[in-house]
C-alpha cells in the first residue's frame, strides 16, 4: 500500500489534562485512489490529516508513505486547507509558482508549469489577479493548482469546499472528480459532508465522534460519475451509502454525548 497509517493514536495535553483525539487509527490508501475520511466536527479529522502531512507528530503509531516513515512536512504531499491560504501579496501565477521557486526550479520552467496547472483548474485568464479578487471557489482552485504544481505523490484535502455555497461546492465536486481522473492523482480527503464523500470517493472511512476511531470502511461502487452530481445523486446506491453513513455518524455522536454526560455526572 502506498499510504499507511498504523495504530495511530493522538493525545493532546490540554489545561484540563490529556485529551484523546484519535485512537488506534489503521488505514491505507493505494496509488490512484480517492479516499475520504468522514466524521462529525471535532472527531479529529484535521488532526489525522496533520499527522499524515507531518505538521504534527502522533503520540503512538505512525504514518508511512511508500514504506518511508513520515517525520515532517514536505512537498511530496500537497495540501489544501479549509481556510484560504493563498499568499495575499502574490498574484495567482506567483502563488502557483511559489513551491517551485522554493525548490529552485528555473524561472522559465516554473512559469510553464504554473501555466499548465492553472489551465488544469480552469484559471488561465486569472494569472495576474490577486487572491482577494477571486471568489471562494476560485481561491480553492488556485490552492489546488499550487499544491499540484510541485507534483506531489499524494494530495491531502482538509474540507477544502466547506466554506463554499452549495452550488459552488457541487461544481467543485465535479471539477475535483474530473481532475482526479485526468491526472491520475492519489487523494486523501477529510470532510464532514457525507454526500461529498460518497460522490467523490472510491473508499470511505467513517470516524466516530470523540475520540476518533474508524468505525466502518466502505468501498463505494457507483456507476460512471462523470455524468455529474445530479445524475449520481439520483442513483439508489448513492442514497444507500449516504443513509448508512448518516446513521452511523448519528449513532456515534449520540454515544459520545452519553459518555460525556456520564463523565460530567
Amino acid at each position, binding site marked *: 500500500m502506498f499510504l499507511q497509517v498504523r495504530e495511530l493514536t493522538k493525545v493532546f495535553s490540554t489545561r484540563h489534562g490529556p485529551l484523546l483525539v484519535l485512537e488506534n487509527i489503521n488505514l491505507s490508501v493505494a496509488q490512484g485512489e480517492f479516499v475520504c475520511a468522514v466524521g462529525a466536527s471535532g472527531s479529529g479529522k484535521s488532526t489525522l490529516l496533520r499527522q499524515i502531512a507531518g505538521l504534527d507528530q502522533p503520540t503512538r503509531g505512525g504514518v508511512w508513505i511508500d514504506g518511508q516513515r513520515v517525520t515532517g512536512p514536505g512537498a511530496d504531499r500537497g495540501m489544501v486547507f479549509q481556510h484560504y491560504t493563498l499568499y495575499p*501579496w502574490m498574484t495567482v501565477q506567483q502563488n502557483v509558482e511559489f513551491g517551485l521557486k522554493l525548490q529552485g526550479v528555473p524561472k522559465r520552467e516554473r512559469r510553464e508549469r504554473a501555466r499548465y496547472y492553472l489551465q488544469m483548474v480552469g484559471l488561465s485568464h486569472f494569472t495576474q489577479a490577486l487572491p482577494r479578487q477571486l471568489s471562494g471557489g476560485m481561491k480553492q482552485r488556485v490552492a489546488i493548482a499550487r499544491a499540484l504544481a510541485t507534483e506531489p505523490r499524494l494530495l491531502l484535502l482538509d474540507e477544502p469546499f466547506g466554506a463554499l455555497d452549495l452550488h459552488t461546492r457541487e461544481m467543485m465536486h465535479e471539477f475535483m472528480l474530473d481532475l482526479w481522473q485526468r491526472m491520475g492523482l492519489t487523494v486523501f480527503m477529510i470532510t464532514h459532508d457525507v454526500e461529498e464523500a460518497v460522490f467523490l470517493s472510491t473508499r470511505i472511512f467513517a470516524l466516530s465522534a470523540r475520540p476518533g476511531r474508524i468505525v466502518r470502511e466502505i468501498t463505494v461502487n457507483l456507476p460512471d460519475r462523470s455524468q455529474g452530481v445530479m445524475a449520481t445523486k439520483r442513483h439508489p446506491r448513492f442514497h444507500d451509502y449516504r443513509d448508512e453513513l448518516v446513521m452511523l455518524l448519528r449513532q456515534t455522536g449520540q454515544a459520545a454525548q452519553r459518555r460525556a454526560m456520564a463523565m460530567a455526572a
Partner: protein
Amino acid sequence: MTPDPTSPQMTPRRLPKPSLQPSVFWRLAEDIPAPLYRRLMLVSVLVPLVAWWLLTTFGQVDAKFLPSPGQVATAALRLGQSGELWQDTWASLQRVGIGFGLSVLVAVPVGVLMGCFQSLRALGEPLFGLMRYMPAPAFIPLLILYLGIDEAPKIALIFIGTFFYNALMVMDTVKFVPKELIEATYMLGGNRINTVLKVVCPHILPGILDTCRINLAGAWQLVIVAELVAATEGLGRRISLAGRFLRTDEIFVGLIVIGLIGLGLDLFFQYLVRVTCRWAQPE
C-alpha cells in the same frame, strides 16, 4: 367564526418609534459622504486659525505672549531668508534620520525574530518590556557622560527612545500571520529561513511601515528634547534660544515647522504603505 373587524387586534397599531434614527453625521463605523468629510477637515484647520487671528486682532493680547499670525509669518520669512530656518530644520532632520534609521535597521530583524521564535521572545521580551518604560530623556545625563555633547548622544537618545518600541511592535505584527499560511509553506517544501524571509516578512511589511510611522513621532519629539538640552543648531535649539530672548514669534515658527514636518513624514509613510502594499488595502 369570522374575526370582528372592530376588535382591538384588528385595528392597525402604530409602529413603535424605530430604535435607530437615520443620520449622516453620526454614522457609526461607517463612511460619511466625501464632500462632507473634506468640509469637516477644512473646518478643523480653519477654526483654530481664525480664532487665533481674532484673538490677536481684537483681543488685548501682548505680542510677547501671543503673536499674531502675521507676525509669525514675518518671523518665518525672516528666518527663512537668513538661512537659519533651513539650517535648523536640516540639523534636526539629519539627527532623526540617522538615529531612527539605525533604530529601525536593528529593531526590524530583532522584532521579526522575536515574533517568529518563542525562544528568542523569552530571551528578549522581559528586558525590552522594562526598557520601554524607562523614559528616554532620563538617559540624557548618562549619554552626555558616555558620549560627550556632540551628535552622538542625540542620535543615541533617539535610538534608545525608539528601538524597544520598534522591536516590540514589529514582534506583535508577526502574530497576525495566519498559522495556516506558514504551514502551507512547509507543505510546499519551505524551510524555516524561507518561510521567515518569503512569507512572514512580506506579510508583515505593512505592519512594519505602520510601526515606523507611529514611532517616528516619538523620534521627532526626542530630537527636540535633545536639542533643548544642548545643541548649536536645530529646531529645538531655535525654540529654546527664542525663549531666552522672548522672541515668541520665533517659538511659534519653530513649533509650526516641527508640526508640519511631522505631518509630512506621517503622510509619506501612509503613502509608502499604499503603494508598496496594495494587497493589504481595503477595496
